[in-house]
């Protein structure tokens, strides 16, 4: 859409046009630039991502080797500034490495669910009729279970482990994404500009590409971003219940579970993985709120 500027190539008009015509994403960025909270939150998430990807650079300790000599050291111990866990492993190292699995289990299921659920939902919304009924009734069946229960049931059947956690979470996030994308598509489909596109003789795929998707994808993406926070919590919850990743893997939910027994001995250390889960999910939530506002063209 950016190549609208093909008309007369005289400099004066080009200048005028440059002032007037800003692309949609440029406007989004301009609005985002003024939203300090969202910018800060995105900054935190970027830092988190960098920390997790380059985890070995951020810690001198190995997250898997412990020592009975230094079990449950408190926060602020020299050499272990966040203390150590119940088997004497450095907590900061485990937090940094644990972020890898936690973020993976938080982002990948939402991404997969976005692909599958988004496709099915948009298809159902655009096709209407029987296709819609078929997809939506199946969705209702999955919807009948709360997502955590569904995830527990699936991992319970398939067994624990990262892959099964991701699979279970993907399945439990598909229904809400189908719901959202179906209702958004249905709304857009009945607007006059879609009728007008049909009146100009466009086929369903062309209409989908030019008129439906660009109105629907933004809100779906924002919704999916808000799901990441829930997904991180669910993944942590599964690990906490012993259905997610297994020890000795470092994962925030699992760490919370293991440190639970030490809550009275060293409360601050035991709470730290929970703090990380809280910060991360909070940031994803705030980011999706900020994006929603920035992407609303009507504001």
């Amino acid at each position: 859409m950016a190549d609208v500027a093909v008309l007369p190539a005289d400099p004066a008009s080009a200048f005028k046009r440059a002032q007037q015509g800003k692309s949609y994403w440029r406007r989004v960025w301009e609005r985002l630039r003024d939203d300090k909270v969202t910018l800060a939150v995105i900054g935190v998430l970027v830092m988190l991502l960098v920390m997790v990807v380059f985890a070995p650079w951020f810690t001198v300790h190995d997250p898997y080797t412990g020592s009975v000599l230094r079990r449950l050291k408190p926060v602020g111990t020299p050499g272990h500034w966040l203390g150590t866990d119940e088997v004497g492993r450095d907590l900061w190292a485990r937090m940094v490495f644990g972020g890898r699995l936690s973020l993976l289990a938080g982002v990948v299921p939402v991404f997969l669910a976005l692909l599958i659920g988004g496709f099915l939902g948009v298809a159902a919304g655009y096709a209407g009729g029987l296709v819609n009924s078929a997809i939506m009734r199946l969705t209702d069946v999955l919807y009948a279970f709360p997502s955590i229960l569904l995830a527990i049931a699936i991992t319970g059947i398939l067994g624990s482990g990262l892959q099964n956690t991701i699979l279970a979470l993907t399945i439990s996030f598909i229904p809400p994404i189908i719901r959202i994308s179906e209702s958004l598509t249905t709304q857009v489909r009945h607007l006059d500009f879609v009728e007008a596109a049909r009146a100009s003789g466009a086929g369903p795929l062309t209409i989908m590409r030019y008129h439906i998707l660009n109105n629907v994808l933004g809100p779906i993406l924002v919704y999916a971003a808000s799901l990441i926070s829930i997904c991180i919590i669910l993944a942590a919850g599964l690990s906490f219940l012993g259905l997610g990743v297994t020890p000795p893997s470092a994962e925030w939910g699992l760490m919370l579970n293991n440190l639970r027994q030490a809550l009275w001995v060293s409360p601050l250390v035991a709470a730290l993985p929970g703090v990380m889960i809280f910060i991360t999910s909070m940031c994803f939530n705030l980011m999706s709120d900020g994006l929603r506002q920035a992407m609303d063209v009507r504001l």
Partner: protein
Amino acid sequence: MSVAKDAALLVGAPRSNARGKLGRSTVDTGTGELVGQTRPLLAVENLTKHFALKGGLLNRTKAVVQAVDGVSFDVQTGETLGIVGESGCGKSTTARLLMHLIPPDIGSIVFDGLVVGAAEGGLSHRDLHRQMQMVFQESYASLNPRLPLAMSIAFGPLVHGLAKPAALKRAMKLLEAVGLDPMLFANRYPHELSGGQRQRINIARALALEPRIVILDEAVSALDKSVEAQVLNLLVDLKAQFDLTYVFISHDLNVVRYISDRVMVMYLGKVVEIGPVDHLYRDPQHPYTQALLSAMPSMDPRRRTLKSPLTGDPPNPISPPSGCRFRTRCPFAEAVCETASPALLAPPGEELRAVACHMRVPGSGHSRAATVVSA
């Protein structure tokens, strides 16, 4: 309708100037047969659309809304046919049926001699869309909020295979034609425009496929009066510039009078009267048209409306009254109106017009029809 005028009408008083500006090129819309010489650009025959209201456990049809019921009319090349009626009378459904946005139950549409959608020798719907375009009422909803305006206009030509630079060039020309500076508006988005500007974009979009006929479905109804006047003038200019034919749907009688050559009045999915605009406004023959016109506010305080025109709402189109659909609100309704549905026929001595009223058909059994005959 004053009593004096009513009486004059009933005894068939001579009406001067009965034949107005239009030449004799119209058809007898009652039978659909050509009376004049020229072939109509658009001939609609017995167009019918009933919407099934489904519901219940097994999704059975519970009721049928007779949105458009046996509508026939013609549009001559170069004229503007106004369609008026209360909301819910089937004006917009008619427009959507013409555009084939919804398929008709029965009825045929003949465009320039070619039957639309016919298997062979007809006009495909895709080709129809090149010839016939539509402007919608809601200027905002009818533009994609995520497309730059030039793309919205260029979309139709792109779909029909025009290369992108050529399509955008055409969009720029059309922006200029509808009075918007292409340099300022091409890359803007719909929410940055006023209602009048948006409706100009919609008009440009409708013209992008270089159609021969444009259906304007309440195209100016949502605009302020001053903007409405500007857009109406623009429509008149564009019509001359691009040799267009208009079907102008509105509930605003003044606007329809201003822009139309002929006017068709609809009531509950049926045509009650059709005729040249001068004749119809000066001497409405159907009681519904009379009521509509007397409901029109006068600009002259000395000629204020004293008699209350129609009262109540139109009946439910789910179960319209038997016989004449207007009989429940008609001051002249008699037994015959209940039993027989009046055909759309030319009243005696007026070939250009057609009225669906028993009072205008000699020997129909209506007591007032007899008066007309005897006179």
